[in-house]
């Protein structure tokens, strides 16, 4: 074999096997499914972690109420906690006792 024959032979390559494109298409589709699944998993994890942090670490809402409102509320509670129906009527209703 001489040098020219070598270069001629270098260009002499068999055809690519048939069906390679279909394999590429299938592998690509599988890859995309896997990628989407991974993204979904990652998003789920982020949301779950966010919720956990929110519930575990966020301070409980403050229970302090301004004094005026607290007094008002206490007063209302006292009214509502009247022990008998008569008590309640006497507190809330201008009852006509002649009837």
């Amino acid at each position, binding site marked *: *074999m*001489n*040098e020219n*024959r*070598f*270069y001629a*032979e*270098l*260009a*002499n*390559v*068999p*055809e*690519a*096997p048939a069906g*390679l*494109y279909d*394999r*590429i*298409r299938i*592998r*690509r589709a599988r*890859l995309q499914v896997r990628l989407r699944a991974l993204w979904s998993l990652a998003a789920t994890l982020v949301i779950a972690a966010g919720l956990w942090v929110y519930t575990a670490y966020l301070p409980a809402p403050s229970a302090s109420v301004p004094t005026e409102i607290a007094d008002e509320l206490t007063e209302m509670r006292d009214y509502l906690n009247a022990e008998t129906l008569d008590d309640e009527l006497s507190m809330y209703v201008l009852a006509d006792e002649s009837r």
Partner: protein
Amino acid sequence: MTEIDEMTLRLATRGDQRASKRFYDFYAPFVWRVIYRTVNGDTEAAGEVLQQSFIRIFSSLKKFKKDSAISTWIYRIAYNVALTFAEKTRQASARMVEADDTLRSRDSLDLDTKREVEQILRALSEEERFLLTAREVEGVSFEDLATITGKNSGALRTSLHRLKERIRQEFGHE
């Protein structure tokens, strides 16, 4: 080399199946020729490299910035995939052309010549085989080869010159 029409490229970028097939049919043959020689005639390996290359090409088509010809960009991806693949399967490189039925079945060419070519190519690295085939068979310019390989075009010229000198010497010793 001639490039695929703009419309097909745009449709393939959007994931259109027919356009993707046209795109593959247009570029796969020349990628195959270079890959086949880069992996030194291992049809199975060349098929795998071609598949991996086109999976990557289709996935990154949207990122193609048109700062080079698309064929150059495709070559670059195929070159990188081929080198990575060769690195991973270096131990398995012994099973070369001997087991290749495709070559055996072609009567028109002399099997001894093929073996001799494979033997000469086997002494070269994957990068050298790529350079030799892309330049000597496909006629890729040194500027494009520089973009593909990330090396200086002057250095590539020198490498190819030395490579051809080595091959010439190989025949001189016969």
